[in-house]
């Protein structure tokens, strides 16, 4: 390791650019880092791409250069620019014999190309060759590429070699070969179905790494087919046992845990194998129980293993002891201060709750805390849990919480999701219809455009039908309350379209039903809506139809209808609308208003939206009319089947009967796909057919649209008229109806909704008696905080809670201070390093400057340099020409001789060195709030790293790259 580092460093320092790259590349990175705007960055990259394009086409570039160009291409593409002009060069590089170049080539192609790219074909051959190479590193590089670049068709080309490599002497190769096979399996399971036994074989590999890698494909295989791997249960258990008992080499320990990642994989596999299988599960109980005991609950990875154990326990055949252990761990997770652990605790709770609903009870408070946490992730996870916990007893609180949260967020994706969940819960568990309507209204109000339109239809249907068993009074109360709430809401600005449709529909149907509101009041509101949302045609359509209903009901009840002036102007406007649907509705409205009360009652029966519409397909009601027409000399209707024969006849007929000829010809041309109507249709009164046209929209099932056109055909009997109407029908027919989705709701049979309602009814009665969770009873809704306090007092006791929190808080602060110290120490030393050696003796200034991190270190540097010029005269150890403008030269001077390390030597020769770092940390600790670093690594403490960062800084400076004021933290030790 040490050796590698020195090699790396020396390489970095030795080459002209350092870090193995040329000055040019470093300049590029530097200038991009310094770019002040996206546009500037763009310009730099475009310039870079032009350079690369030019250079790459140069026929004799040295290979080393070529390698760098490829890396630069990768870099450019990472920044989001298309580097496809250089792909071919990357491909060529994979053909190179030099290992470094080949690996670079492979790296580039795996990043550039997808498996279906045209250039892949040029690589497959190389991969085949490389898989056979003697150098195992080349084989590894090729295997890496295989994972990414081989698609279904090319699998057979490399499969034999990959399988052969499963027996390679190097474990690194075996591991990668397994991964490659796994990848093949993912891409095309059939291609390696005959090779699956290889995975089983590799499970017994001597190398734990290979064994661990084998678990990945086995996990996938077992997920798809549990039963064929039941025989491995014993093997997995014994492996897990060995791992847990630390039989693996020490190098697999991670933070004092024996091979935790392998344990996690094994626990996952066991969870699959033990699900619902008592016999298999019994093998696992001991080892899982051991893991619960052995896991270090203080380390993150220990908790990861514990969490996986809980998942395993909740999946396999239940064992009371293990469940208890799992519940203990969960309560520890939930009580923890770490949000991560809380998150995992909530998730685990959700799993365990399925087995034992009582477990939630003891964690109610923690759950409430999580729900109120400002952390969105945790909050959402908690809602997920609550969703599974919802019962009719707590649905109100939960749904209200969800809605509050839904209102507060802007993320559309999640808003849609949570809205649908609210609706689902409300549908399933609603205690009463009134509440349901309120909830759905809220959802619509705040997320209307995101909700499935079906919800709107369901809502309309519910209002229309109510609970049949509750009787009519309840229903009408429900409707009145709906109407009232909508009249309140309707004035709100910017309501979602779907919601407005519901509002219009309900106002139209029930606005005047209870007599509380006058028709003109409702009509006025409806006109306001149509006016306010004049861009939304479906809202206007709903509004007009609602108007028609309101006036129709007025008419029926015998009152005189006076149309409001704004309504009149709306109708006039819509009659000239571009939308045929709106036009039709406007005309229908006018026609309906013009009719007498009885006719209106026929076409617009009050409160009949739930009645099934009976369609008289034979149109027997037209018989009279047809008869009359026939008597008046109209032509009888000829069924389609007879028409072709008619044509022949008419062709023979004399030429002056052109009309007949022409319309028989037209029959041909338009080929009407219409079921034949009996020829002997008696005539019928024209009044009825006139009524039929303006039948209100929502009452039309599909079939009526045929019936409306049919009568007009037989009406006049002449084919001319019929053809014209045909055109109209096409224009008005399907699109008209499909544009008003509400129609299908009111006409469809009510059974599904009723089933749902019935189901929830049964559910609620069932669960009320059991009464499992108490924390969300209905009366808890208004003041959850009181409830919470009560719960807190009864569950935890007020004082103990605060006590518990206090120490952890201090602990946290000390931790951050620690991090701050280090960061500052590192930074200030970095600043110091820029100062010529003489200045290092003067420690006062840097300490002062470091306490104000917002100051540009380079400004400070300049200041320091001035001083250094003064002090350097005193100092006998003056190094190089010490002039301000070219202080970089100074670095070149110094490092030329000693490769940067002389800096450190200088520093360490300084006797104050250690003192000043400690002093620095003291100062920064006092000033406290500089930049805070989240240091999750309590256990990963390292000594002061001033030396290392100085060294690094020297190297970078030597190359002429200076971290800029924008990014002074580039040197910050990540693990500091």
């Amino acid at each position: 390791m040490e050796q590698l580092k020195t090699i790396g460093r020396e390489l970095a320092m030795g080459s002209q650019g350092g870090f193995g790259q040329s000055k040019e590349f470093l300049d590029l990175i530097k200038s991009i880092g310094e770019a002040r705007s996206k546009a500037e960055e763009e310009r730099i990259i475009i310039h870079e791409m032009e350079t690369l394009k030019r250079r790459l086409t140069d026929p004799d570039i040295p290979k080393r250069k070529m390698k760098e160009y490829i890396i630069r291409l990768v870099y450019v593409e990472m920044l989001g620019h298309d580097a496809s002009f250089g792909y071919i060069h990357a491909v060529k590089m994979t053909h190179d014999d030099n290992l470094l170049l080949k690996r670079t080539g492979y790296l580039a192609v795996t990043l550039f190309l997808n498996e279906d790219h045209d250039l892949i074909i040029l690589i497959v051959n190389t991969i085949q060759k490389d898989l056979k190479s003697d150098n195992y590193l080349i084989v590894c590089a090729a295997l890496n590429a295989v994972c990414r670049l081989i698609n279904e068709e090319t699998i057979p080309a490399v499969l034999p070699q990959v399988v052969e490599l499963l027996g390679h002497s190097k474990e690194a190769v075996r591991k990668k070969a397994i991964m490659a096979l796994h990848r093949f399996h993912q891409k095309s399971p059939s291609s390696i179905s005959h090779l699956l036994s290889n995975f089983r074989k590799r499970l017994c590999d001597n190398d734990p790494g290979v064994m661990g890698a084998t678990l990945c494909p086995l996990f996938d295989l077992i997920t798809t087919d549990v039963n064929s791997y039941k025989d491995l249960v014993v093997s997995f258990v014994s492996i897990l046992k060995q791992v847990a008992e630390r039989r693996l080499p020490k190098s697999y320990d991670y933070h004092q845990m024996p091979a935790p990642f392998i344990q996690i994989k094994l626990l996952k596999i066991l969870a699959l194998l033990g699900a619902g299988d008592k016999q298999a599960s019994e093998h696992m109980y001991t080892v899982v129980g051991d893991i619960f005991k052995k896991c270090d609950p203080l380390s993150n990875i220990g908790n990861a293993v514990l969490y996986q154990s809980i998942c395993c326990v909740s999946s396999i055949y239940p064992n009371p002891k293990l469940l208890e252990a799992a519940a203990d761990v969960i309560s520890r997770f939930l009580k923890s201060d770490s949000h991560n652990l809380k998150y995992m605790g909530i998730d685990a709770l959700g799993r365990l709750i399925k087995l034992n609903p009582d477990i939630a009870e003891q964690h109610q408070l923690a759950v409430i805390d999580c729900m109120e946490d400002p952390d969105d992730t945790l909050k959402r996870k908690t809602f997920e849990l609550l969703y599974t916990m919802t019962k009719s007893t707590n649905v109100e609180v939960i749904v209200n919480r969800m809605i509050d949260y839904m209102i507060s967020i802007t993320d559309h994706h999640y808003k849609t999701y949570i809205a649908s969940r609210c609706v689902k819960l409300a549908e399933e568990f609603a205690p009463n219809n009134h509440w349901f309507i309120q909830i759905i209204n809220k959802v619509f109000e705040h997320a209307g455009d995101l909700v499935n339109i079906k919800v709107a239809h369901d809502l309309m249907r519910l209002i229309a039908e109510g609970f049949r068993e509750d009787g009519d009074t309840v229903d009408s109360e429900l409707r009145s309350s709906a109407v009232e709430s909508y009249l309140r809401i309707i004035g709100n600005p910017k309501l979602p379209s779907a919601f407005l449709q519901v509002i219009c529909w309900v106002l139209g149907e029930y606005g005047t039903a209870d007599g509380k509101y006058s028709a003109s009041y409702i009509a006025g509101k409806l006109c306001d809506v149509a006016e306010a949302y004049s861009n939304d045609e479906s809202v206007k359509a709903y509004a007009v139809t609602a108007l028609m209903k309101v006036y129709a009901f007025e008419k029926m009840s015998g009152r005189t209808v006076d149309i409001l002036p704004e309504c009149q102007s709306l109708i006039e406007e819509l009659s000239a609308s571009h939308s045929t649907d709106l036009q039709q509705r406007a005309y229908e409205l006018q026609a309906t208003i013009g009719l007498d009360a009885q006719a209106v009652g026929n076409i617009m029966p009050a409160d009949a939206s739930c009645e099934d519409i009976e369609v008289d397909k034979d149109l027997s009601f037209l018989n009279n009319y047809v008869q009359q027409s026939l008597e008046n000399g109209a032509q009888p209707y000829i069924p389609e089947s007879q028409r072709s024969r008619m044509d022949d006849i008419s062709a023979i007929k004399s030429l002056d009967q052109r009309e007949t000829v022409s319309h028989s010809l037209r029959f041909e041309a338009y080929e009407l796909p219409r079921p034949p109507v009996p020829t002997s249709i008696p005539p019928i009164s024209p009044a009825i057919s006139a009524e039929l046209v303006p039948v209100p929209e929502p009452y039309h099932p599909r079939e009526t649209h045929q019936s409306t056109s049919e009568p007009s055909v037989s009406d006049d009997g002449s084919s001319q008229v019929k053809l014209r109407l045909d055109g109209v029908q096409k224009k008005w027919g399907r699109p008209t109806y499909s544009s008003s989705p509400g129609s299908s709701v009111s006409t469809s049979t009510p059974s599904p909704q009723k089933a749902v309602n019935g189901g929830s009814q049964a559910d609620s009665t069932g669960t009320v008696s059991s009464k499992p969770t108490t924390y969300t009873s209905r009366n808890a809704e208004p003041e959850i905080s009181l409830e919470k306090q009560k719960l807190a007092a009864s569950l935890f006791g007020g004082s103990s809670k605060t006590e518990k929190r206090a120490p952890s808080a201090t602990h946290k602060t000390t931790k951050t201070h620690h991090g701050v110290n280090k960061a500052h120490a590192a930074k200030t030393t970095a600043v110091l390093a820029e100062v010529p050696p003489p200045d290092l003796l003067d420690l006062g200034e840097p300490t002062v400057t470091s306490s104000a991190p917002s100051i540009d270190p380079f400004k400070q540097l300049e200041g320091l340099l001035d001083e250094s010029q003064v002090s350097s005269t005193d100092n006998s150890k003056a190094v190089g020409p010490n002039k301000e403008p070219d202080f970089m030269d100074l670095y070149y001077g110094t490092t030329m001789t000693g490769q940067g390390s002389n800096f450190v030597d200088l520093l360490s020769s300084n006797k104050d060195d250690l003192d000043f770092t400690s002093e620095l940390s003291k100062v920064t600790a006092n000033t406290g709030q500089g930049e805070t670093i989240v240091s999750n690594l309590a256990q990963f403490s390292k000594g002061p790293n001033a030396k290392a960062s100085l060294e690094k800084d020297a190297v970078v400076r030597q190359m002429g790259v200076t971290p800029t004021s924008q990014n002074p933290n580039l040197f910050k030790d990540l693990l500091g």
Partner: protein
Amino acid sequence: MIRAVIVMNTQGKPRFAKFYDFQPVEKQQELIRSVYGVLCSRAENVSNFVETESIFGPDSRLVYKHFATLYFVLVFNSSENELAMLDLIQVFVETLDKCFRNVCELDLVFNYSKMHTILDEIISGGQVLETSSSEVMKAVEEISKLETASNSINFVSKTVSGWRG
């Protein structure tokens, strides 16, 4: 399965990105941008997990860890354990630290390809391959040795200025 590994600094500049299911360049940028948008809006002392179904599609989760100036981000699906993924980031960073001795952002910027080498040892084809950072280091060391060896053979004659190995 792990779907992506992204390293970006706290200003949203990508420092490293690897997607295990292919994403076109523009899509990658979009993803990185939206991930950054989520991360920079998250407060300190909140969990390291983020729901990202709106960014990466269904069944995707994200774990991130903030080190000094960098975010390390892992995107994966439900077949992985979040806490374990958090530690996988730790393994990755610890390995980087072993490799670069007190690793800092600048090291990553300048050793782009080496990061890939390290990551390829840890994750392969979206699956966790090796989690022992010393094992990873061993492999990386060996690669470096051989690379430098082949360098000295091939390059010394061609390059005049001190490319020594």
